[in-house]
Protein backbone atom coordinates (compact mmCIF):
# COMPACT_ATOMS: atom_id res chain seq x y z
CA UNK A 1 0.00 0.00 0.00
CA UNK A 2 1.64 3.29 -1.05
CA UNK A 3 0.70 6.94 -0.84
CA UNK A 4 1.06 9.33 -3.74
CA UNK A 5 3.56 11.87 -2.33
CA UNK A 6 2.12 14.65 -4.51
CA UNK A 7 -1.24 14.41 -2.78
CA UNK A 8 -0.87 14.34 1.01
CA UNK A 9 -4.48 15.31 1.64
CA UNK A 10 -7.07 12.75 2.56
CA UNK A 11 -9.15 13.11 -0.58
CA UNK A 12 -9.95 9.79 -2.04
CA UNK A 13 -8.71 10.50 -5.55
CA UNK A 14 -6.10 12.65 -7.20
CA UNK A 15 -4.61 13.24 -10.64
CA UNK A 16 -1.09 12.49 -11.69
CA UNK A 17 0.70 14.41 -14.44
CA UNK A 18 -0.93 12.51 -17.26
CA UNK A 19 -4.41 13.53 -16.07
CA UNK A 20 -5.29 9.97 -15.13
CA UNK A 21 -7.25 9.70 -11.90
CA UNK A 22 -5.41 7.67 -9.29
CA UNK A 23 -7.18 6.13 -6.32
CA UNK A 24 -5.41 7.16 -3.13
CA UNK A 25 -5.68 4.74 -0.23
CA UNK A 26 -7.45 6.71 2.50
CA UNK A 27 -7.21 3.79 4.89
CA UNK A 28 -3.73 4.95 5.91
CA UNK A 29 -5.03 8.34 7.05
CA UNK A 30 -7.85 6.68 8.97
CA UNK A 31 -5.24 4.48 10.67
CA UNK A 32 -3.18 7.54 11.63
CA UNK A 33 -6.19 9.22 13.18
CA UNK A 34 -7.03 6.03 15.04
CA UNK A 35 -3.47 5.68 16.32
CA UNK A 36 -3.42 9.24 17.64
CA UNK A 37 -6.64 8.57 19.51
CA UNK A 38 -5.27 5.25 20.76
CA UNK A 39 -2.31 7.14 22.27
CA UNK A 40 -4.79 8.81 24.61
CA UNK A 41 -6.38 5.46 25.37
CA UNK A 42 -2.96 3.95 26.11
CA UNK A 43 -2.10 6.77 28.53
CA UNK A 44 -5.52 6.42 30.17
CA UNK A 45 -5.09 2.66 30.61
CA UNK A 46 -1.44 2.89 31.71
CA UNK A 47 -2.43 5.36 34.43
CA UNK A 48 -4.70 2.67 35.82
CA UNK A 49 -2.70 -0.55 35.47
CA UNK A 50 0.74 0.87 36.17
CA UNK A 51 2.76 -1.29 33.77
CA UNK A 52 3.54 -1.35 30.06
CA UNK A 53 2.75 -4.98 29.25
CA UNK A 54 -0.81 -4.90 30.60
CA UNK A 55 -1.38 -1.43 29.10
CA UNK A 56 -0.34 -2.69 25.65
CA UNK A 57 -2.56 -5.77 25.85
CA UNK A 58 -5.58 -3.78 26.89
CA UNK A 59 -4.99 -1.02 24.33
CA UNK A 60 -4.76 -3.67 21.64
CA UNK A 61 -8.10 -5.10 22.78
CA UNK A 62 -9.67 -1.65 22.55
CA UNK A 63 -8.24 -1.16 19.05
CA UNK A 64 -9.64 -4.45 17.82
CA UNK A 65 -13.07 -3.82 19.27
CA UNK A 66 -13.09 -0.38 17.65
CA UNK A 67 -12.17 -1.59 14.15
CA UNK A 68 -15.78 -1.79 12.88
CA UNK A 69 -16.40 1.80 13.99
CA UNK A 70 -13.14 3.16 12.59
CA UNK A 71 -13.97 1.97 9.08
CA UNK A 72 -16.98 4.26 8.86
CA UNK A 73 -14.91 7.43 8.57
CA UNK A 74 -16.37 8.99 11.72
CA UNK A 75 -14.74 12.23 12.96
CA UNK A 76 -12.03 12.02 15.62
CA UNK A 77 -14.29 13.28 18.42
CA UNK A 78 -16.85 10.51 17.86
CA UNK A 79 -14.11 7.92 17.68
CA UNK A 80 -12.61 9.16 20.94
CA UNK A 81 -15.87 8.79 22.86
CA UNK A 82 -16.33 5.26 21.61
CA UNK A 83 -12.73 4.28 22.29
CA UNK A 84 -12.96 5.46 25.87
CA UNK A 85 -16.26 3.75 26.47
CA UNK A 86 -14.60 0.59 25.15
CA UNK A 87 -11.53 1.21 27.32
CA UNK A 88 -13.78 1.38 30.39
CA UNK A 89 -15.32 -1.98 29.65
CA UNK A 90 -11.97 -3.57 28.80
CA UNK A 91 -10.49 -2.28 32.08
CA UNK A 92 -13.50 -3.57 33.99
CA UNK A 93 -13.09 -7.02 32.46
CA UNK A 94 -9.34 -6.93 33.18
CA UNK A 95 -9.79 -6.24 36.88
CA UNK A 96 -12.63 -8.67 37.31
CA UNK A 97 -10.65 -11.44 35.60
CA UNK A 98 -7.38 -10.74 37.46
CA UNK A 99 -9.10 -10.42 40.81
CA UNK A 100 -11.46 -13.33 40.15
CA UNK A 101 -14.53 -11.21 40.84
CA UNK A 102 -17.68 -10.62 38.86
CA UNK A 103 -17.81 -7.12 37.43
CA UNK A 104 -20.68 -6.28 39.76
CA UNK A 105 -18.42 -6.95 42.74
CA UNK A 106 -15.88 -4.39 41.60
CA UNK A 107 -16.23 -0.90 42.88
CA UNK A 108 -16.79 1.50 39.96
CA UNK A 109 -13.32 2.90 39.67
CA UNK A 110 -13.21 3.95 36.06
CA UNK A 111 -13.12 7.69 35.58
CA UNK A 112 -15.62 8.77 32.97
CA UNK A 113 -13.89 11.97 31.91
CA UNK A 114 -12.59 11.72 28.34
CA UNK A 115 -9.20 13.41 27.88
CA UNK A 116 -9.40 16.25 25.40
CA UNK A 117 -5.78 16.45 24.32
CA UNK A 118 -2.38 14.77 24.38
CA UNK A 119 -1.34 12.73 27.43
CA UNK A 120 -0.97 15.19 30.28
CA UNK A 121 0.33 14.95 33.76
CA UNK A 122 -3.07 13.73 34.92
CA UNK A 123 -1.75 10.70 36.76
CA UNK A 124 0.98 12.59 38.63
CA UNK A 125 -1.43 15.34 39.64
CA UNK A 126 -3.97 12.84 40.86
CA UNK A 127 -1.29 10.99 42.80
CA UNK A 128 -0.30 14.23 44.54
CA UNK A 129 -3.93 14.98 45.40
CA UNK A 130 -4.42 11.52 46.83
CA UNK A 131 -1.24 11.69 48.88
CA UNK A 132 -2.18 15.13 50.21
CA UNK A 133 -5.30 13.56 51.68
CA UNK A 134 -3.38 11.05 53.79
CA UNK A 135 -1.89 11.24 57.25
CA UNK A 136 1.83 12.12 57.43
CA UNK A 137 3.16 8.61 57.94
CA UNK A 138 1.02 7.05 55.24
CA UNK A 139 1.91 9.81 52.82
CA UNK A 140 5.61 9.45 53.54
CA UNK A 141 5.64 5.70 52.94
CA UNK A 142 3.85 5.99 49.61
CA UNK A 143 5.90 8.98 48.45
CA UNK A 144 9.18 7.24 49.18
CA UNK A 145 8.04 3.95 47.70
CA UNK A 146 6.16 5.04 44.60
CA UNK A 147 7.34 8.50 43.68
CA UNK A 148 11.00 8.07 44.65
CA UNK A 149 11.34 4.33 44.06
CA UNK A 150 12.82 3.48 47.48
CA UNK A 151 13.10 -0.18 48.41
CA UNK A 152 11.38 -1.35 51.60
CA UNK A 153 14.72 -1.39 53.37
CA UNK A 154 15.45 2.18 52.33
CA UNK A 155 12.03 3.34 53.46
CA UNK A 156 12.53 1.60 56.79
CA UNK A 157 15.91 3.32 57.22
CA UNK A 158 14.46 6.71 56.28
CA UNK A 159 11.52 6.36 58.65
CA UNK A 160 13.59 4.70 61.37
CA UNK A 161 11.42 1.66 61.42
CA UNK A 162 11.63 -2.01 60.49
CA UNK A 163 10.92 -3.63 57.14
CA UNK A 164 8.03 -5.57 58.67
CA UNK A 165 6.43 -2.47 60.13
CA UNK A 166 6.88 -0.55 56.87
CA UNK A 167 5.23 -3.39 54.95
CA UNK A 168 2.17 -3.19 57.18
CA UNK A 169 2.15 0.61 56.93
CA UNK A 170 2.37 0.36 53.15
CA UNK A 171 -0.72 -1.85 53.04
CA UNK A 172 -2.69 0.43 55.33
CA UNK A 173 -1.55 3.50 53.40
CA UNK A 174 -2.74 1.98 50.12
CA UNK A 175 -6.11 1.13 51.66
CA UNK A 176 -6.38 4.71 52.87
CA UNK A 177 -5.30 6.05 49.46
CA UNK A 178 -8.06 4.02 47.81
CA UNK A 179 -10.61 5.71 50.06
CA UNK A 180 -9.25 9.18 49.30
CA UNK A 181 -9.25 8.80 45.50
CA UNK A 182 -12.70 9.81 44.24
CA UNK A 183 -12.26 7.64 41.14
CA UNK A 184 -10.87 4.64 42.95
Amino acid at each position, binding site marked *: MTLDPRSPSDSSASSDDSGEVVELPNATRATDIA*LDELELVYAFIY*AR*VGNRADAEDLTQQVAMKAIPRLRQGAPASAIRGYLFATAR*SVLGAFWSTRLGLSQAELHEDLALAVPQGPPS*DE*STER*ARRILAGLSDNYRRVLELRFLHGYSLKEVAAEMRSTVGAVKVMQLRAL*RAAAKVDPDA
Partner: protein
Amino acid sequence: MPEQPENRIERIVEDLLHGRRLRLRAGDAEEKQAIIAAARLAAARSGPQRMSPAFRRRLAQILDSSPREPRLTRRAALVAGLGVAAGAVAGGIVGRQLASSPAPLPLSASSPVVPRNGRWTDVGALADFSEGQGKLVRAGAVGAFVFRRGETVTAVSSMCSHLPCELWWERGSSLLECPCHPVSFTSDGKPSSPSYTLPALNEVKVRVSAAGRVEVLGT
Protein backbone atom coordinates in the same frame (compact mmCIF):
# COMPACT_ATOMS: atom_id res chain seq x y z
CA MET B 1 -0.42 -20.88 56.28
CA PRO B 2 -2.15 -18.24 54.12
CA GLU B 3 0.03 -15.38 52.92
CA GLN B 4 -0.20 -12.26 55.07
CA PRO B 5 -1.93 -9.37 53.25
CA GLU B 6 1.04 -7.02 53.70
CA ASN B 7 3.27 -9.59 52.00
CA ARG B 8 0.79 -10.04 49.17
CA ILE B 9 0.67 -6.32 48.59
CA GLU B 10 4.46 -5.95 48.81
CA ARG B 11 4.88 -8.62 46.14
CA ILE B 12 2.52 -6.73 43.84
CA VAL B 13 4.13 -3.35 44.61
CA GLU B 14 7.57 -4.79 43.81
CA ASP B 15 6.31 -6.07 40.47
CA LEU B 16 4.83 -2.70 39.60
CA LEU B 17 7.90 -0.72 40.63
CA HIS B 18 10.00 -2.99 38.42
CA GLY B 19 7.68 -2.47 35.47
CA ARG B 20 6.33 -6.01 35.58
CA ARG B 21 2.78 -7.11 34.90
CA LEU B 22 0.20 -7.39 37.59
CA ARG B 23 0.38 -11.00 38.75
CA LEU B 24 -2.52 -11.59 41.04
CA ARG B 25 -3.42 -14.76 42.88
CA ALA B 26 -6.51 -16.14 44.53
CA GLY B 27 -7.15 -14.19 47.68
CA ASP B 28 -5.67 -10.94 46.36
CA ALA B 29 -9.21 -9.78 45.67
CA GLU B 30 -9.60 -9.02 49.35
CA GLU B 31 -7.22 -6.12 48.89
CA LYS B 32 -8.59 -5.02 45.52
CA GLN B 33 -8.81 -1.36 46.45
CA ALA B 34 -5.23 -1.27 47.73
CA ILE B 35 -4.04 -3.04 44.56
CA ILE B 36 -5.83 -0.60 42.29
CA ALA B 37 -4.40 2.33 44.31
CA ALA B 38 -0.91 0.82 43.99
CA ALA B 39 -1.26 0.50 40.21
CA ARG B 40 -2.26 4.15 39.94
CA LEU B 41 0.59 5.35 42.12
CA ALA B 42 3.08 3.23 40.15
CA ALA B 43 1.80 4.82 36.96
CA ALA B 44 2.18 8.29 38.49
CA ARG B 45 5.86 7.59 39.08
CA SER B 46 6.43 7.04 35.38
CA GLY B 47 4.59 10.18 34.35
CA PRO B 48 2.42 10.39 31.23
CA GLN B 49 3.10 7.44 28.97
CA ARG B 50 3.22 7.14 25.21
CA MET B 51 3.14 3.93 23.20
CA SER B 52 6.52 2.51 22.25
CA PRO B 53 7.30 2.79 18.49
CA ALA B 54 7.20 -1.01 18.19
CA PHE B 55 3.78 -1.22 19.80
CA ARG B 56 2.47 1.61 17.64
CA ARG B 57 3.66 -0.25 14.54
CA ARG B 58 1.98 -3.43 15.74
CA LEU B 59 -1.32 -1.60 16.24
CA ALA B 60 -1.01 -0.01 12.80
CA GLN B 61 -0.62 -3.47 11.27
CA ILE B 62 -3.69 -4.71 13.09
CA LEU B 63 -5.75 -1.73 11.99
CA ASP B 64 -4.52 -1.91 8.40
CA SER B 65 -5.03 -5.62 8.00
CA SER B 66 -8.54 -5.72 9.44
CA PRO B 67 -11.33 -6.88 7.12
CA ARG B 68 -12.63 -4.06 4.96
CA GLU B 69 -16.16 -5.41 4.69
CA PRO B 70 -18.59 -3.63 7.02
CA ARG B 71 -19.51 -6.75 9.00
CA LEU B 72 -16.93 -8.56 11.08
CA THR B 73 -16.36 -12.22 10.41
CA ARG B 74 -17.12 -14.48 13.34
CA ARG B 75 -13.42 -15.16 13.80
CA ALA B 76 -12.52 -11.46 13.88
CA ALA B 77 -15.30 -10.84 16.39
CA LEU B 78 -14.02 -13.66 18.61
CA VAL B 79 -10.46 -12.34 18.41
CA ALA B 80 -11.71 -8.88 19.26
CA GLY B 81 -13.37 -10.36 22.33
CA LEU B 82 -16.85 -9.17 21.43
CA GLY B 83 -18.31 -11.95 23.55
CA VAL B 84 -19.74 -13.97 20.68
CA ALA B 85 -21.61 -16.94 22.12
CA ALA B 86 -20.66 -20.17 20.42
CA GLY B 87 -22.82 -20.81 17.39
CA ALA B 88 -24.98 -17.74 17.90
CA VAL B 89 -23.58 -15.51 15.17
CA ALA B 90 -26.18 -15.25 12.45
CA GLY B 91 -28.82 -12.65 13.24
CA GLY B 92 -29.95 -12.20 16.81
CA ILE B 93 -28.13 -10.04 19.32
CA VAL B 94 -24.64 -10.48 17.86
CA GLY B 95 -25.84 -9.54 14.39
CA ARG B 96 -27.25 -6.39 15.89
CA GLN B 97 -24.01 -5.53 17.68
CA LEU B 98 -21.90 -6.01 14.58
CA ALA B 99 -24.13 -4.11 12.17
CA SER B 100 -22.38 -1.01 10.91
CA SER B 101 -25.23 0.36 8.83
CA PRO B 102 -26.95 3.41 10.31
CA ALA B 103 -30.31 2.17 9.04
CA PRO B 104 -32.95 1.22 11.61
CA LEU B 105 -32.14 -2.07 13.33
CA PRO B 106 -34.28 -5.18 12.88
CA LEU B 107 -35.39 -5.47 16.54
CA SER B 108 -38.53 -3.50 17.24
CA ALA B 109 -38.35 -0.60 19.67
CA SER B 110 -37.70 -1.68 23.25
CA SER B 111 -38.67 -5.31 22.62
CA PRO B 112 -37.08 -7.38 25.35
CA VAL B 113 -33.79 -9.13 24.70
CA VAL B 114 -34.51 -12.84 24.84
CA PRO B 115 -31.41 -14.75 23.72
CA ARG B 116 -31.57 -18.19 22.20
CA ASN B 117 -30.32 -20.60 24.89
CA GLY B 118 -30.54 -17.74 27.37
CA ARG B 119 -29.64 -18.28 30.98
CA TRP B 120 -30.05 -16.27 34.13
CA THR B 121 -26.67 -14.87 35.15
CA ASP B 122 -25.80 -13.65 38.64
CA VAL B 123 -24.47 -10.10 38.42
CA GLY B 124 -24.23 -9.30 42.11
CA ALA B 125 -26.12 -8.77 45.32
CA LEU B 126 -28.99 -6.28 45.41
CA ALA B 127 -26.97 -4.36 48.00
CA ASP B 128 -24.27 -3.76 45.35
CA PHE B 129 -26.66 -1.62 43.35
CA SER B 130 -27.19 1.97 44.44
CA GLU B 131 -30.71 3.38 44.31
CA GLY B 132 -31.37 5.14 41.03
CA GLN B 133 -27.83 4.72 39.63
CA GLY B 134 -27.20 2.78 36.44
CA LYS B 135 -24.68 -0.04 36.82
CA LEU B 136 -23.16 -1.74 33.80
CA VAL B 137 -23.26 -5.53 33.96
CA ARG B 138 -22.58 -8.35 31.53
CA ALA B 139 -24.35 -11.64 31.14
CA GLY B 140 -22.33 -13.41 28.48
CA ALA B 141 -22.89 -11.53 25.22
CA VAL B 142 -25.62 -9.34 26.74
CA GLY B 143 -24.58 -6.01 28.24
CA ALA B 144 -27.08 -4.09 30.31
CA PHE B 145 -27.52 -1.21 32.71
CA VAL B 146 -29.36 -2.31 35.84
CA PHE B 147 -31.33 0.19 37.91
CA ARG B 148 -32.48 -0.43 41.44
CA ARG B 149 -35.69 1.05 42.78
CA GLY B 150 -36.15 -0.08 46.34
CA GLU B 151 -36.32 -3.87 46.34
CA THR B 152 -36.95 -4.21 42.60
CA VAL B 153 -34.69 -3.84 39.59
CA THR B 154 -35.10 -2.95 35.92
CA ALA B 155 -32.58 -3.20 33.10
CA VAL B 156 -32.04 -1.88 29.61
CA SER B 157 -29.57 -2.80 26.92
CA SER B 158 -26.18 -1.10 27.24
CA MET B 159 -25.99 -0.61 23.47
CA CYS B 160 -27.30 2.54 21.84
CA SER B 161 -30.41 1.86 19.75
CA HIS B 162 -28.89 3.76 16.83
CA LEU B 163 -25.28 2.58 16.33
CA PRO B 164 -23.42 -0.30 18.02
CA CYS B 165 -21.85 1.91 20.68
CA GLU B 166 -21.81 1.06 24.36
CA LEU B 167 -23.50 3.72 26.45
CA TRP B 168 -22.21 5.05 29.73
CA TRP B 169 -24.06 6.25 32.83
CA GLU B 170 -23.56 9.94 33.46
CA ARG B 171 -24.25 10.52 37.14
CA GLY B 172 -24.53 14.29 36.82
CA SER B 173 -27.46 14.20 34.45
CA SER B 174 -28.78 10.73 35.39
CA LEU B 175 -28.79 9.72 31.74
CA LEU B 176 -27.27 6.99 29.63
CA GLU B 177 -25.01 8.77 27.14
CA CYS B 178 -23.83 7.56 23.75
CA PRO B 179 -20.15 8.13 22.90
CA CYS B 180 -20.81 8.11 19.15
CA HIS B 181 -23.55 10.69 18.81
CA PRO B 182 -24.95 13.41 21.05
CA VAL B 183 -27.90 11.29 22.17
CA SER B 184 -28.90 10.06 25.57
CA PHE B 185 -31.52 7.87 27.19
CA THR B 186 -33.32 7.89 30.50
CA SER B 187 -33.09 4.97 32.88
CA ASP B 188 -36.24 3.44 31.42
CA GLY B 189 -34.61 3.42 28.00
CA LYS B 190 -36.44 6.30 26.37
CA PRO B 191 -34.40 8.70 24.25
CA SER B 192 -34.09 12.06 25.99
CA SER B 193 -32.89 14.05 22.98
CA PRO B 194 -35.73 15.67 21.06
CA SER B 195 -33.51 16.24 18.02
CA TYR B 196 -33.12 12.53 17.25
CA THR B 197 -36.01 10.16 16.74
CA LEU B 198 -34.57 6.93 18.01
CA PRO B 199 -36.10 3.70 19.19
CA ALA B 200 -36.11 3.19 22.92
CA LEU B 201 -33.41 0.92 24.34
CA ASN B 202 -34.24 -2.77 24.42
CA GLU B 203 -35.49 -3.99 27.75
CA VAL B 204 -33.26 -6.65 29.33
CA LYS B 205 -34.88 -9.22 31.58
CA VAL B 206 -33.68 -8.93 35.17
CA ARG B 207 -34.89 -10.30 38.47
CA VAL B 208 -33.97 -10.51 42.15
CA SER B 209 -33.67 -14.04 43.46
CA ALA B 210 -35.01 -15.17 46.83
CA ALA B 211 -31.44 -14.94 48.14
CA GLY B 212 -31.22 -11.26 47.21
CA ARG B 213 -29.03 -11.79 44.13
CA VAL B 214 -29.65 -9.82 40.94
CA GLU B 215 -29.85 -12.01 37.84
CA VAL B 216 -29.90 -10.95 34.19
CA LEU B 217 -31.12 -13.07 31.30
CA GLY B 218 -28.09 -13.41 29.06
CA THR B 219 -26.12 -16.03 27.19
